[in-house]
């Protein structure tokens, strides 16, 4: 909050310097008054699904490392999971540059929080609420941060898992997903997730869902990371691939069921 206040002050200063008369109600310099201000956005480099589940010791997040440029799978080493402070993990689908900006905001927030050096720290609930404010306010200015975020964390034994998206819709749940994950992974979670899963069970469940996404989501790449957050802290795994199977009978002789030229 200190950061926000200081930013406001700086911004006010800057505007006052440019604008001159504080009472006319302008919030931009004369030179820019009638020029087009573009707000409509399209995402350019996007990440696909992020999955999150609560388990016995904390929260697990999974995502692949793909950054699509439209329909091209252009970037294959994009970090879409990041630790935030001591207690939280953040994963994002959507515009990668906006995610990187969000991480910058949060790093600054955590920095100011640490600078208090007073034994208090922002937990996952606080970060989630802050992000919600951020996303919703941008949406109201018709200039959204084009992301769906998954936020997981543990503080004082309390596990937390929630999501926020670019229009400010937010909620907490035992299992969350973004994008295609909502359609393909959530049904599997609903069937197979249960309270207090072990780490191995959790990873197995996430990998099962990532495999389904790999087969069915065209923007998925076979290079994924699983991140875990517990009371001790956050760890993000090295990237790895999962085994896929293409030697299905039906694929071997595709024309068997439909002989002919069309």
């Amino acid at each position: 909050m200190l950061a926000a206040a200081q930013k406001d002050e700086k911004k006010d200063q800057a505007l006052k310097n440019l604008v001159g008369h504080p009472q006319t109600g302008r919030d931009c310099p004369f030179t820019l008054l009638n020029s087009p201000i573009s707000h409509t956005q399209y995402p350019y480099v996007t990440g696909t699904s992020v999955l999150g589940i609560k388990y016995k010791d904390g929260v697990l997040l999974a995502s692949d490392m793909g950054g699509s440029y439209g329909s091209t799978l252009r970037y294959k080493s994009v970090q879409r999971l990041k630790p935030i402070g001591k207690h939280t993990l953040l994963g994002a689908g959507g515009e990668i540059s906006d995610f990187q900006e969000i991480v910058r905001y949060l790093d600054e927030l955590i920095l100011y929080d640490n600078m208090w050096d007073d034994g208090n720290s922002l937990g996952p609930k606080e970060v989630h609420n802050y992000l919600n404010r951020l996303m919703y306010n941008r949406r109201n200015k018709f200039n959204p941060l084009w992301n769906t975020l998954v936020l997981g964390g543990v503080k004082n034994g309390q596990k937390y898992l929630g999501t926020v998206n670019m229009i400010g819709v937010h909620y907490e749940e035992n299992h969350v997903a973004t994008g295609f994950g909502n359609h393909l992974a959530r049904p599997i979670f609903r069937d197979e997730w249960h309270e207090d899963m072990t780490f191995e069970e959790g990873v197995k469940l996430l990998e099962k869902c990532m495999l389904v996404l790999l087969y069915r989501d065209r923007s998925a790449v076979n290079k994924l990371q699983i991140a875990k957050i517990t009371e001790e802290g956050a760890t993000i795994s090295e990237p790895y691939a999962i085994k896929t199977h293409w030697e299905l009978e039906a694929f071997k002789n595709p024309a068997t069921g439909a002989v002919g030229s069309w």
Partner: protein
Amino acid sequence: MFRNQYDTDVTTWSPAGRLFQVEYAMEAVKQGSAAVGLTSKTHAVLVSVGKTNSEFSSYQKKIFKVDDHIGVAIAGLTADGRVLSLHMRSECIHYKFLYDSPLPVGRLVVQLADKAQVCTQRSWTRPYGVGLLVAGLDETGPHLYLNCPSGNYFEYQAYAIGARSQAAKTYLERKFETFPECSRDELIRHGVISVREALAEGKLNGSNCSVAVVGAGEAFSILDPKMVQQIIDSLDDKNEEPPADVAPVEGEQGAVQDDTDQGVAPMET
């Protein structure tokens, strides 16, 4: 304190390295009526004595709720105290809005202290003439802080400010080691007794004495005057801790020589 050539404005140091205007501001705190704060492991309590302008007026409001988990008792320039309370409320609600979480007391107190410090370094604003006892609860338990016009803040187990606060502090000094284990009601009793020591004349009653509590599972609230009256009356019954030179009577019912507690204080509406 003598008038001297270095005390005209805040931005003038004295050769001895003192800022007299700031010290004069702290004097204003000593002129206000007494306020006492104390903490246990689970609760924090604020008790204060109110003054009236005349027989017909109401008692000065000395305790303000800042948020569900923080409250403040003031001594000194009441108007300054009110304005600062408003500021504190604003900070708390802003934090709540951003983080959906209560503002840690320690951080509020530092922000308040920084605000007070600004006034000690500008030639066009004067220091705030009010001392604030901030009582609050956060993740690490109940806390009591004192904010001075100088921009300093201190954390206390128990403290008293305002007129004749030394008498209250003497009582607290004798008893503070038992405070951590005190129950909520015992803590309130200690607070009321200590504030009674700071009363020059007249008697404590539900109208001129304000009591507020905050604790684990209990939001900050100012007790009803009738409730306060009951507490004061129960002090009279038990007659614990008469003035220092009489040996304390522990928990016994029955008359004791102390005649300053004769009769029940009138109930005010």
